[in-house]
């Protein structure tokens, strides 16, 4: 059904006239030109399309526009503030925690959401929280280190 959908996208309120049954992933990528969230499997198994919805990491290929009505959606493009990268982005760079980079936006967004809930995760908690985000290149060991570094950095800032 064509509806007017209001939501906050990367901190800005927007209003879209769109078929509300369309998947969030494709509306983000085509109508809105935000291509950071990627298609990887289309069924929620890989996590490449992960975005934040009200600070929760969700698979945008499994959400429709209706699902995000009046919600706050953040994509990888919305993480840096005024060109200043988020500590997770910096830590992924410092640790070379990526290879092909296709899964990277989903990895960072997923880590962002769980660090909000658990700012000082143990290594086993990081592994459990990241386990459903797939990477084929084998950057895993560095992704864990990057998340640990970012957690310390973010924790340090709060003090």
């Amino acid at each position, binding site marked *: 059904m064509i509806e007017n959908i209001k939501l906050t996208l990367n901190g800005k309120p927007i209003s879209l006239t769109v078929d509300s049954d369309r998947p969030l992933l494709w509306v983000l990528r085509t109508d809105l030109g*935000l291509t950071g969230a990627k298609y990887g499997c289309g069924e929620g198994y890989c996590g490449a399309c992960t975005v934040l919805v009200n600070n929760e990491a969700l698979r945008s290929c499994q959400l429709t526009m209706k699902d995000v009505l009046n919600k706050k959606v953040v994509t990888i*493009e919305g993480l840096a503030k005024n060109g200043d990268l988020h500590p997770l982005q910096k830590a992924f760079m410092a640790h070379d925690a990526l290879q092909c980079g296709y899964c990277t936006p989903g990895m960072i967004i997923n880590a962002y959401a769980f660090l909000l809930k658990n700012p000082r995760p143990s290594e086993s908690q990081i592994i459990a929280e990241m386990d459903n985000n797939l990477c084929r290149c*084998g950057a895993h060991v560095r992704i864990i280190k990057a998340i640990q570094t970012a957690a310390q950095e973010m924790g340090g800032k709060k003090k």
Partner: protein
Amino acid sequence: MNNDQIYKSDFSDNASDFQMDRREFLKLTGGGIFILFSLWESSPFLEELQAQGRELPTDFNAFLKIGEDGRVSLFTGKIEMGQGVITSLAQMLADELDVSVENIDMVMGDTDLCPWDMGTFGSRTTRFFGPPLRAAGAEARWVLLELAAEKLNLPLTELIVENGIVFDKTNRKRQVSYAELTKGKRIERKLTEKVEVKSPDEFKIINRPFLRRDARAKVTGQAKFASDLQFPDMLYARILRPPSHDAKLIEVDLTAAQQMEGVQIIHEGDFIAVLHKYPDVAENALQKIKARFNVPESNLNENTIFDHLLRVAPEGETVAEGGDLTTGENESATIVEGTYFDGYKAHAPIEPHTAVAKIEGDRVIVWPSSQTPFPAKEEIAKALGIPPEKVRIISPFVGGGFGGKSRNRQAVEAARLTKLTGRPVQVAWSRQEEFFYDSFRPAAVVKIKSGIDSEGRIRLWDYHVYFAGNRGSQHFYNIPHHQTLSHGSGWGGAPGTHPFATGAWRAPANNTNTFARESQIDMMAARAKQDPLEFRLKNLTNEKFIRVLKAAAEKFNWKPAPTPSGRGWGIALGIDSGTYVATIAEVEVDKNTGEVQVKRVVCAQDMGLVINPQGATIQMEGCITMGLGYALKEDIHFRGGQILNENFDTYHIPRFSWLPEIETIIIDDKSAPAQGGGEPAIITMGGAIANAIYDAVGVRVYQMPMTPERIKEALTKSDRY
């Protein structure tokens, strides 16, 4: 060793065409200093072309350009898919030119601008493109020094270069920058083979660790992959696919799809595509197509395939031989026989095959996720019936390849559709299509008969590999009586061999061969009641193998004991792309469930000169992590030409929870030529884990993946040495 011969059959189309108008190149590249490709008579690159019966390239595209602003453009037909050559190639050129890495702009995989290239695979970039690139850098530096000498009125011996600025050695105030020297000039030099590159003691950038240069783009979501490219009026296409590779379309009803608003349908024989400005609407339209296919019955599946392969296998081709097998058998006190199996594996990059195509004037421009942009150009030209110079390929970032993006079906589809619709078209395969059209790592069988004397010296080695391919099939132990035969190539083969496409999968053939060989070596060590490390050392003479093996053992803190020791330790040794690898794994096996957890992996490799130690380490980690998958879980299930794995719920690739503690060692041999780094460390994972499982629970698993079911089954048998 000619491991790479195996690639040659893969690109059988004949000589490339390099007809682009020279003025076009000038227009595209502007002024500056260019170092052009020339006939590098002794280079492996050209030998390879000649061996394939290709004509020598008369390509005038440059390796590099130093622009009037002093910035350096590096042109390479290679693409970046995560392996990190976007950084390591820049390091090579920067060092030879004496500029900073930051000063280098990469132009990768653009067929109008870059020198011809066969493709990015086989751990070849550093080994084969590296040497001419470095020579081009050295040549350019020489040209600039000559210009500087003239400008500063000094002899060459009085000049030094730092960071793109040429100084008078004795008076640093007298200086001139590369940018000033280049201004207003267009100088072209052909690369000759006489250029001297830097020696290891002169390196400032090569052999130093550098972080990825593309990381910022990739952590911010700005990096462009094929699917991220959008053009005004672009249509997304979905294509009707058969349920099985041998299925035939009987009838199709497009009515419901045709009635959808904004949907365009292309129907040419069996090629049926639906297009829409939104990919999800195109998908909905595809779902509305009613199609009936005839699917032939088949009894081929993941269990029956091995008997089938042995049945259709051709005579073996001799890869290596020496001594006399009968003598070897007579000299052996113990004979060990093993038959090993490996199932089909998917490449499963997280980015499925994608391409965007559009018409510009009388040319077709295609942006594909492809490891082979130049062959893609030829394939597209052929499919469209236009001359190759009417096609341009521009390579975006590629979201993982692993050998799977060497064919360009999706690029041809996008090109066809842009020609038929007159609009830009994106073809992005679904995950299901990605599994269906993958060129799988072939299922394969290895049969080995080997013998040892009473002191545990190997006397006999009779090795037959069926359909894996010969890469890595040669043993490297000190064995007087031996033969190695390869039956059937790694892919292709006669029709009826495989029920679907097979192809190169990260270190093709070598994963299967190394698993079989190193399992067999361990079985012999167990029969001799000798420690597997000592057994290997006793039977090795090659210093490089001994060195990597000792390095890994020392780091692992290996303590000798015959197997099975109950500790769950396993060793495997191998060579790929010129790089020597030793891996030691520690596993824990749950005897009730058969589940294996790999606790620790120590891997040592000797890859000659290391261009970027950071990048090389990361490739090793990636290989070790990816290797867990083929060793333990990855297996394609199929019924004839029908692929039953359609997504990641049934095809299990490694996850965070599978991770062992990973320790890597690189033996830095600066005096030796740089060897491959993207593939070698994956080859030993199957063998090291198989041997560790045996050491843990005393049973041998002969088939990969070594699933819990197979381990439990082995535990119920009395097959113990």
